[in-house]
């Protein structure tokens, strides 16, 4: 029960105040420039009162004695060891007895040996571990999965039929190529990147972008995706942009999210670099290091963190130290931000108030890139230097591909995906046990380090082409494995990726699947701020909702845990509210009413004698088949068909409604499997 503690850190309780930084600065030679910093610090409500916190005493000089000699040493070129390459035998996999697949397996594509980078690493790793791969997806499983994963929408029956009826050998990659970059793909990935960049109008730290800033940032992300802007370019723009109006210049809003009130301006630099390191390098532990050295805190978590000091973290913050983020009052209770490199002085030590423990010491810290210790060139803009170093860092590519991988495979190759340990990534240079504190993680961090590096290298070679990365992933045999599994599944082997792990649909996907399949699209708008839009996937942010903070649509979407892009991340969990919503909410109930124009009405108008007809190939048959194909993107199984038909004989209209309601509540509706 550990009564002895080396020190707990945190920042957590330390908060404290501002109070006009009335600290001793009489003998400080740079008092005039402190005034500038103070002005910068006053971007939000600066009505803090001074309070002190006893935990601050924990961060005294005695902690610093453990710092010496902890600088990182750069090693040589990373080599992506290919290792033994066992040929992936698709036929052997296909020979397994397959669990029955709803929709039938009669139109499976023939699988074929793959030259895909991912497959060259995944299948040998599975073989080495003695874990059998799941069977390949059927075409039916594939078409729904890939539409949802890439565009966030279920395929229309026509789209499903077009794919199923296509007899060409490369029809899967053809479909993938047509989806990546499509308008629906832009909608979906605008939301994905907005989650990653935490684009919201209000966060718990008190920063408000306002809906005007959110929509501007949303527009920047959207247009970047539409033009398939290289990812390193987007990152550089976000990190280096200067501007006077966050309402009109979208990319300004990224660093605005790091504005922290209630402290000195260093708190803002710290938060901005903490966000940036997490977003672009997967190093969320930098946030810990900005309060305290890694030793005594990250020992059991992160080997790199253990060897990294707070001073080194300040070197990263210093890249932001010439940047002023200032609010301009547009009208009552409406403020835009400017972001400009007007500062001249580096990151100052000696702060004793604010949101982080006192920055012990005097003088200033110059910018030093924390992975490799590079410094800006003479006269180089600090943020330009930061962007240059980050985007040319291989870790930048690794973090990006891992985030994308985590989305498609549910588990990152490094997981959690924002907690990379840079000392445990190189398969040719694994951690030396002599360097690891007792009980510390001392093995390679990625579940497949060679794969992660190879994927990242491909990403670099493609000039950071996000669309190419997705195509590479989605075209792999590994991605196209079924989520059905033969034999006993050992959950502890999940990170070998021998089976597709199911994903509960996002809030927006559930909503849009209901509205599109029923043929009843809503129209949402918010004054002049945004809209009209017809898909939940086109909403600019969770906090700005179609029908107000407590409206039915908003509550329905929130029940599926879309998060708030701040302290409530998007979650895959289930909940009571989700089930209540799918069973009873008007969003569903209005769309299963027989009288309402749309799917059910159309289907009921079909001849009753053909209710049990199942279409050939991907074509639609009678009532039952039409509902299944439209909602679940597959034919009914024989059992499902006979069950439905038996019910329909008693009361066709009512039972058709019951059937449609059941389809919207089926687990294979609410999950991508």
């Amino acid at each position, binding site marked *: 029960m550990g009564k002895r503690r*080396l020190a707990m850190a945190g920042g957590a309780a330390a908060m404290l105040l501002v109070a006009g930084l009335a600290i001793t600065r009489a003998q400080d030679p740079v008092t005039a420039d402190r005034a500038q910093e103070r002005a910068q610090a006053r971007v939000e409500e600066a009505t803090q009162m001074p309070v002190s916190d006893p935990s601050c005493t924990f961060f005294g000089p005695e902690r610093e004695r453990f710092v010496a000699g902890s600088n990182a040493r750069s090693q040589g070129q990373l080599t992506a060891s290919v290792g033994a390459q066992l040929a992936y035998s698709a036929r052997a996999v296909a020979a397994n007895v397959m669990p029955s697949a709803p929709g039938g397996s009669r139109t499976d594509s023939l699988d074929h040996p793959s030259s895909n980078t991912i497959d060259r690493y995944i299948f040998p790793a599975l073989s080495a571990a003695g874990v059998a791969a799941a069977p390949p997806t059927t075409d039916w499983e594939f078409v729904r999965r890939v539409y949802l994963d890439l565009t966030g929408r279920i395929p229309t029956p026509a789209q499903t039929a077009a794919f199923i009826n296509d007899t060409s050998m490369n029809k899967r990659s053809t479909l993938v190529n047509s989806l990546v970059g499509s308008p629906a793909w832009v909608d979906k990935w605008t939301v994905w990147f907005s989650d990653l960049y935490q684009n919201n109008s209000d966060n718990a730290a008190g920063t408000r972008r306002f809906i005007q800033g959110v929509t501007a940032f949303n527009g920047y992300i959207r247009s970047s995706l539409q033009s398939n802007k290289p990812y390193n370019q987007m990152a550089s723009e976000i990190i280096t942009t200067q501007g006077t109006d966050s309402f009109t210049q979208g990319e300004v809003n990224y660093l605005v999210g790091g504005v922290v009130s209630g402290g000195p301006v260093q708190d803002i630099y710290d938060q901005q670099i903490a966000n940036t390191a997490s977003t672009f390098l997967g190093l969320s532990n930098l946030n810990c290091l900005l309060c305290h050295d890694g030793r005594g805190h990250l020992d059991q*978590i992160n080997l790199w963190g253990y060897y990294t000091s707070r001073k080194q973290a300040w070197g990263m913050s210093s890249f932001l130290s010439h940047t002023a983020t200032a609010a301009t009052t547009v009208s009552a209770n409406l403020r835009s931000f400017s972001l400009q490199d007007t500062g001249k002085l580096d990151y100052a030590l000696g702060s004793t108030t604010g949101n982080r423990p006192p920055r012990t010491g005097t003088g200033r810290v110059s910018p030093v890139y924390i992975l490799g210790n590079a410094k800006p060139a003479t006269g180089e803009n600090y943020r330009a230097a930061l962007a240059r170093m980050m985007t040319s860092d291989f870790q930048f590519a690794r973090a990006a591909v891992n985030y994308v991988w985590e989305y498609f495979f549910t588990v990152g190759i490094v997981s959690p995906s924002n907690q990379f340990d840079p000392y445990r990534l190189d398969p040719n240079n694994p951690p030396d046990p002599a360097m690891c504190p007792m009980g510390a993680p001392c093995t390679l961090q990625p579940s497949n380090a060679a794969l992660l590096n190879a994927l990242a290298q491909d990403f670099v070679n493609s000039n950071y082409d996000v669309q190419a990365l997705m195509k590479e992933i989605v075209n792999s045999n590994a991605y196209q494995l079924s989520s059905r599994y033969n034999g006993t599944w050992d959950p502890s082997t999940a990170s070998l990726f021998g089976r597709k792990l199911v994903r509960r649909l996002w809030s927006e996907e559930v909503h849009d699947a209901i509205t599109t399949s029923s043929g009843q699209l809503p129209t949402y708008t918010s004054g002049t701020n945004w809209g009209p839009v017809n898909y939940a996937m086109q909403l600019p942010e969770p906090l700005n909702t179609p029908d107000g903070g407590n409206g039915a649509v908003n509550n329905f979407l929130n029940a599926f845990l879309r998060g708030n892009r701040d*302290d409530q991340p998007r979650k895959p969990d289930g909940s009571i509210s989700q089930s209540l919503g799918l069973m009873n909410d008007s969003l569903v109930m209005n769309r299963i009413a027989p009288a309402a124009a749309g799917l059910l009405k159309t289907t009921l108008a079909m001849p009753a004698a053909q209710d049990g007809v199942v279409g050939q190939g991907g074509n639609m048959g009678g009532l039952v088949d039409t509902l299944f194909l439209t909602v679940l993107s597959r034919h009914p199984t024989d059992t499902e068909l006979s069950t439905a038909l038996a019910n329909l004989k008693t009361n066709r209209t009512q039972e058709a409604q019951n059937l449609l309601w059941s389809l919207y509540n089926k687990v294979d509706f609410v999950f991508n499997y």
Partner: protein
Amino acid sequence: MEQDPVYSPNKNVDKKYTALAHKYPHLHQPFFKRPDISRRRFFQLAGAGVSGSYLAGRALAASSVDTNQGMATKNTAKNVIFVLLTGAISAWDSFDLKVINGATPAAMNAATINGISWPMGTMPKLGAQLDKLALVRSMSAHALVHTLAQTWSQIGRNPAAALGNIAPNIGSVIAIEKDPLRTPGQVFPAFIALNSPSGAGGGYLPATYAPFRVTQPSGTTNAGIPDTTNKNGQTLFNTMYSRLHQLDDPLRLNSPYGQPLTDYNDFYSQAHGMMYNPTVNTAFGFTAADSVRYGSSSFGNACLVAKQVLAANQGTRFIQISYGSWDFHQDIYGTINPKGSNMFTMSPALDNGVSTLLSDLQSTGLLDETLVVMLGEFGRTPGALTGAGGRDHYVLQTAVFAGAGVKGGKVIGATSSDGKNITDFGFAGSGTTGPRNVWPEDVEATIYSAMGIDWTTIRHDDPFNRGFEYVPFASQGTYGPIHELWA
């Protein structure tokens, strides 16, 4: 592309420090004593698939993943009602009334009841129940930004700090802690958040422990929880529900697509248990007569529902109710616009709702086992009003406690007559701090102590493998319960 930096530790490891680290184990122990054991991985090992789920939550609660300092808790409460007065109520015009010449209106009807200053003009009914209330007048907020401080109050820590953005609401911690006490047949979520659509959520804990949010109408009748009945009627619903199982059981029970689909069915079972359930309607619905007793307001209705939910004994342990906004920077007394939002128009709902709640809890015996906590996210500037006739943000405020053995009719701590300073802490402090003011973290520790939960508990299942301490720094004695409430 520059040379790829592969970062490797310096071989000249600090031997001295390593020896120290071996001698003193840290608090950041991953709970499986093996690297890479993330929460997500834990769920996999727990056999529940990758998504947090109802079953995973049960496994998590049941497993021994906590460490603590073995503190003695009060353990006098089974339930908590947490009232958050958003926008920051002025203590000087409510629980720590100051009569300021030229500012405080006569209509405030300042009175002294058993030595306690009280605004009988705005809160007469609570004034008649001061024997139930303990007023902690030495409380201070850390920060003066609304969203930040509101979240701070609900999670008991700095939202901007390392674990701030994964920290669960206090109610979620209580929900997971008390989950083993749940008995078969109890169908209510453990944590219900009333009128709190944007309050702090369940953090990194599974969704089972997240707040179940219900907003009460301002009207005087309510049938229950939205979506617990079906528009097609119960008979047809039952048919649909059986059709669903008939059709989908091959995919939702022992699903070939994996455990998460099977887990998802558990939520359907829970949701189904709440539908057409007279217990749900009794607890979450109300009649005009009861609503009138509680003041005929949305807040009053929430208080009424809170009482009914606890009386139903259906597994709910923590109820949060939010009421605001009290952010009166202008015209705090309605001098300019008497019908606008001000202390005189906002207070009656609070007075009616909480006073009726307390007396109802007492008459049903629930008050003895229910801790009621009421506070804002911070306080407001003391003394004369601002030029706009309002009060701006200030750290000092009053926290109100009742029930669960808390001694009523009591004031802990005191502020100066001008309200600018604390003159008496009335709080012995925690650890070795000595007497000091009360922080939100101390209120959090007080709630845990009342619920029999060691406030120094550290969970080792957080996604950072850092160790999630229920009350930050509590194991070092930085924060702790206000034992004086029971003295």
